[in-house]
């Protein structure tokens, strides 16, 4: 299972970085999204993939049932997803503004248009 996660997140990193090196704003933003998803999967896999009980103290026994899953990576990922969502939303708005004010979505043209 770890292998599948490792390969998937590796592919996400690679495609994300490749897209961030492209010239169109939309591709860069998709790249940012893929990169942050790759990171989330990596945290999930690094935290340990186990088939076990939820880390909740049961009312009947008053204690945790071993083995239980580590809740921290999931909390970290949840936070990272929320932050990533906000960041992507903001980048989209910014890219829209760039397109509106410069009439181009090509990173190379942005530099020359802006100097004009």
């Amino acid at each position, binding site marked *: 299972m770890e292998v599948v996660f490792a390969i998937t997140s590796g592919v996400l990193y690679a495609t994300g970085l490749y897209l961030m090196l492209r010239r169109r704003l939309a591709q860069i933003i998709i790249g940012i999204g893929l990169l942050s998803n790759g990171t989330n999967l990596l*945290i999930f896999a690094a935290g340990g993939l186990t088939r076990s009980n939820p880390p909740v103290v049961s009312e009947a026994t008053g204690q945790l049932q071993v083995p239980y899953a580590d809740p921290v*990576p999931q909390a970290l990922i949840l936070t990272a997803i929320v932050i990533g969502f906000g960041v992507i939303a903001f980048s989209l708005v910014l890219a829209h503004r760039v397109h509106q004010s410069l009439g181009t979505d090509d990173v190379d043209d942005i530099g020359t*248009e802006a100097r004009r």
Partner: protein
Amino acid sequence: MTLVLPIVIPLLAAALLLVVPARAVLQRSVALTASAGQLIAGLALFRQVQVDGYLVLQVSDWAAPFGITLVADVLSSILVVAVGIVGVAVGASSFAGVDPRREAYGYHPLIQVLLMGVAGAFLTGDLFNLYVWFEVMLMASFVLMALHRTSEQIAAAFKYVTINLLASAVFLTGLGLLYGSAGTLNMADLAAIWPARNEPVLDLVLATLFLTAFGIKAGLFPLFFWLPASYPTPPAPIGALFAGLLTKVGVYALIRVFSLLFRGGPPLPLQLLLWLSVATMIVGLVGALAQRDFRRVLAFNLVGHIGFTTIGLPLGTTAALAGSLLYIVHHILVITCLFFVAGVLLQLRRTTDLGRLGSLYRDHPGTAVLAMIPLFSLAGVPPLSGFVGKLAVVQGTFGAGAYGPGAAVLVVSLLTIVSMARLWDEAFWKPADAPPVSPRPAPLLLVPVAALGALILGMTVAAGPLFETTTRAAGQLLDPQGYIEAVLQSGLGRGE
């Protein structure tokens, strides 16, 4: 209580600023009051840390390492005071006039959120929490940078956003790998268990990831290229705020993480950091000499002097690290002040192009004298604070036996003098044919310049005690045993 105030005050102020009527005077007064409050809270924190050494708060009484820890040592408390000073200067400068459209779109609350993020980053004792504070700070800075609408600024903002998001992703990757192996992200807990783990390969990977992520944020060579592209574009107060504080958060994170996690650890990334610092200095200053615009010269100088603030860490001696820490304080004050000077020039002449500036000394002698203080302080002319800071760095480098980097520091100091003398000559001294655009200097924008100038002079007077304080901070960083004990053994609810 003192530990949360520097974070809570700007948070409450940001919320308040969203609901109070959008009258300029009211908004500006609330923002300035909040920043003054943050400064006072920072000073109180500084005093208490001077007495106790460490101040620890377990948020919601979750004992470390399970909850989030806030912790202040000497370095954190010094930097929180610096945040307060910059905040007050920026708050005061808004009375000199802010673009009304920008003010209507949340200029003041965003600045408060940014100040909160920076203070949070300096005070947190948890690595994931540090990431969250980074994002808080970055989101505020993204919006502040994109709030105005000229094409050049929008293009600069997009570069800034992309490169910073990449840095965040790299940092988060490092965090995931670290958690997977160590099972904790509490900094003190990590410092206690990680160096003994002896995992050279993972150490190398993590150190490289963290060096890249923080290096981008700090503006280290070769990752600094986004900075001169984006910092000169926003208006003076925002430029001053970014230049003064944001890169220093990257430097702080480098110092904190490396001193806790990689104590005497992998020599390779640390050796690399030494030479990256040297390269940053040289490339930054050579870049500055090639520029023809006051603000771009400042941006390259900002990059160049980041090298001074990171060189003490890889050398690993108390004196070298203390010198770098002293330099951070000096650099925050001076570079903030200089970006305000650029704002004054912009108001007086409508341009910061060196070719079209000139005769400012003839037309506005008072302003010129005020501008002289930060210019020559950055150059390191005695008796200004730059001299003290550079002396401390040079002594530290030579004391650690690093003669090559020490020589580079001296050469770069010389280049700084050339760069600053050129700014002085071109902007203030040389006769200009163009008639002055504005007959009077704007007195209100000169207030932060004068106040920061006074602090720069004051730093020279208090150089002795200040150096003792940074020496103490360096001692704490290089021997984190006290930090570890303070955090892990602080019982529930202690630290108040």
